[in-house]
């Protein structure tokens, strides 16, 4: 996965993501594609969650999955999550759950609860940073005011790091793939460098949902695992998604 929150030179917060899933879950040699990724693509839907006929939040989901991986609380905040790998992983959280220790939250139920109930970027940030989880994760959060964009790096029990947009440091965007931002990504799976190269080439002056889509369409940020691309703009409450393909030659991940 690749998630980006960027602030343009007019103070608009833009949030884009590629949802990559299905690694090592069966390769279709004939079609040069991942079996599960291909089966997920027809399930991609945009959802408008309403209460009293008013939109509470919107999301891009796989039908049948009740948690959230990509969502927007219009005019308030935008949220995506990327997978984080750690030896202290989800299987430990599941074992604890089975043994009756149930003070942690399932990751996608937390994101759903935050989108449904949090009413500000700060409130969302606090809940995502402090709630105990069953598995590690990256939460990428965008707000509705200047400087409100961050990557929350989570272990199961701790908030390990928070990286925020900081215009004074000329950090006008934050970008997360699936590696701790203070570490080098696995050389075989470096989607961060090409994505940052393209962001820096576009510049803050020209960043928009359109140019963000260009970056999310550049290989290997776009790869054989990419099921959908979502673009969100909190100020307009706009969420748009597109089902993707990656024509050969294309990285498997």
């Amino acid at each position, binding site marked *: 996965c690749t998630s980006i929150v960027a602030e343009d030179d007019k103070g608009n917060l833009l949030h884009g993501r590629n949802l990559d899933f299905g690694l090592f879950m069966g390769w279709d040699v004939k079609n040069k594609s991942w079996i599960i990724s291909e089966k997920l693509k027809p399930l991609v839907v*945009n959802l408008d969650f309403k209460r009293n006929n008013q939109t*509470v939040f919107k999301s891009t989901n796989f*039908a049948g999955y009740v948690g959230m991986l990509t969502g927007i609380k219009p005019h308030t905040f935008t949220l995506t999550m990327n997978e984080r790998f750690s030896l202290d992983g*989800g299987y430990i959280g599941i074992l604890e759950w089975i043994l009756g220790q149930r003070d942690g939250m399932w990751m996608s139920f937390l994101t759903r609860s935050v989108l449904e109930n949090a009413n500000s970027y700060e409130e969302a940030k606090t809940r995502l940073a402090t709630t105990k989880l069953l598995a590690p994760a990256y939460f990428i959060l965008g707000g509705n005011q200047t400087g409100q964009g961050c990557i929350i790096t989570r272990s199961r029990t701790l908030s390990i790091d928070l990286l925020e947009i900081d215009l004074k440091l000329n950090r006008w965007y934050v970008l997360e793939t699936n590696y701790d931002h203070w570490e080098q990504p696995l050389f075989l799976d470096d989607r961060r460098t090409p994505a940052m190269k393209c962001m820096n080439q576009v510049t803050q002056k020209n960043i928009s949902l359109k140019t963000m889509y260009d970056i999310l369409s*550049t*290989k290997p940020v776009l790869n054989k695992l990419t099921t959908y691309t979502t673009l969100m703009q909190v100020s307009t409450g706009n969420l748009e998604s597109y*089902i993707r393909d990656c024509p050969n030659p294309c990285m498997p991940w």
Partner: protein
Amino acid sequence: SAQFVPPFTEDCRSHMYPPNGPTFRGAVAWYTVDLDLPPSKRWNTLIADKKTDLVTMIQAIRDLADAFVPSGRLVELVDVTLPLMANTLPDPFSEEIKGIAAVSGIPLGEVVLFNIFYEVFTV
């Protein structure tokens, strides 16, 4: 030239928007989820529409499990134990997942597995 050797890193794309061409498979349909409905009813419309695709996807995961454990015991384990897990999940998720299983006809354990896949997959 960089494009034709791994990791096939392209020059930064431009003018890809509005989405078109070989990297764009299609637009995404919109559905409303009415949070005023009982949790077990909220997903009915969507699941009724996507039932076939969901069954196909679950079957692919079942085939994958059988590839690892040809005896079928792994799928059996999922179908027997994960429904118990459903009752331990916090509401409204437990009821929503049961509603999805009821409408789709997919065994409850397999719908639970689909919904906790993030934690399971870290294994």
